């Protein structure tokens, strides 16, 4: 798949420029796109995370679902949650559903504390 290759390059560059956060395209059913997020997402990298994922979203034309595998996400701050909320709004306006998978308890806790869990599809 050509666009899968393009996305991988997009994230390769991101990963080179950011130490604590690694993004990787994942295999998904045909109408979905998947990204695994590992490391930590905080004020230092939330903005560039947002930027690269929005760019990715632009490439994912015609896709119905975006999957984020958060199993490797060790830490998230409120800015990280903010990045996901903005992404959610952008995705919804394009008719794309967002699924966040395998959140660790501390990551889930920040979603809960801030009261955003009910807006997301969070899956174990």
């Amino acid at each position, binding site marked *: 798949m050509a666009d899968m290759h393009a996305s991988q390059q997009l994230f390769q560059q991101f990963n080179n420029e950011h130490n604590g956060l690694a993004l990787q395209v994942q295999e998904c059913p045909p*109408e979905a796109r998947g990204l695994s997020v590992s490391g*930590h997402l*905080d*004020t230092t990298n939330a903005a560039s995370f947002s930027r690269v994922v929005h760019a990715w979203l632009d490439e994912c034309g*015609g896709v119905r679902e975006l999957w984020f595998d958060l199993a490797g996400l*060790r*830490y998230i*701050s*409120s*800015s990280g949650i*903010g990045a996901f*909320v*903005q992404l*959610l*709004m952008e995705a*919804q*306006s394009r008719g794309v559903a967002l699924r966040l998978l395998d959140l*660790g*308890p*501390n990551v889930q*806790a*920040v979603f809960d*504390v*801030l*009261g*955003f869990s009910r*807006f997301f599809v969070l899956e174990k």
Partner: protein
Amino acid sequence: MMDVRPGADFPPDLFHALLSQQMVYRCDADDRIVDVNPAGVRLLGYASAQDLIGTPMADLYASPEDRGYLHSLMREHGAVRDLEVVLRQRDGTLVFVLETAVASPRAEVGDVDSSYWGVMKDISDRVEAQRNQLHTNLELAETNRLLKATQSRLVQQEKLASVGQLAAGLAHEINNPLSFIISNLDTLRSYVTALNRGLSAVEGLIPEDALRDHRQIREEHHLDEIAADLEDLFRESRHGLDHITSVVHSLRTFSRSGIGQSQTMVDLNEALESTLVIARNELKQGITLHRDLSPLPPVSCRADEINQVILNLLLNAVHAIRSRHTDAPGTITVRTLAQPDGVVLEVEDNGPGIASQNLRRVFEPFFTTKPVGEGTGLGLSISYDIVVNRHRGDLSVSSEPGRGARFTVRLPLSGETEET
């Protein structure tokens, strides 16, 4: 009291002012609190520093895993700056703070892991403000989407209504001439048959010596070909007129000019079975029908209209499967399902499915992808009108292009429907 001294080049007043605002703590090698300042005691909602001394720092975190993360950063960098963590106050309230930690300056050289100093700055107000902003945006977006959905539904209903009026007028205009054309055509056909018969009788009387001339005349005027063509012409005309009749019939149903049938209690499974009988001929060739039916409570509805909906869905499925032009087995699955507040009927096929850009258009009046003369584009819009407007139900479609389409009819149990 904790012994905190400013560094050599730090203004002492500023140093103490800062520390009176922010929690400062020291913990031992086991990460238990050894000392904490009054601002810290206040921040965590305790009465005195004594209540906190000996407490593992991880216990004060909303997520103990985050303390582990801080430790790993300390090991890696020797210090942590402004790490956002969530602390749990004594009464359970959660507060967002920025934590800065360094290995204790009094630690011996080579003993950096022995204890930490930490400062916690309460940022709950800031986080709360940002959170509220995001929350408002999210809720606004949600409301907007809802409004849009309602609006497009209203537009759809408006379209249906105006097309309905148009259709009523058209159907009426066409219906009268149509019936006398059909009747005249039938008469014409019987006249021509009679003429032919008369002609043959007359031909029987032609004397032997005139037969040659007679044959020549027949040939000159192509009478034999014409006679052979006539039957086809009549049949094709009749065929075309039948199609027009069925279109007009659809238009009339669509415009509700038909006589409104009253509501009865209907078992959708029975309605389905009777419609399957009607559609049997279409379903025969190369199509396997799967029934996946559950017992259903009766619902109050207009049976003839619901039958029409089911028939439309079945015929569309058949047409979809035929349009593939392959010999691969076609399957249609009909499914019924009882839900707490209604009943559900699904017609699913493994035809070509519906391209995503057409998905929202299939319920539009006159939308059809079938060749001229084959599709009216009215079946689904009529069905939509019947289910949604007249029965307060729901008709939806989902499709994976290349794999097939599924149409879902939902009828509410409380059969409060629109008056005819």
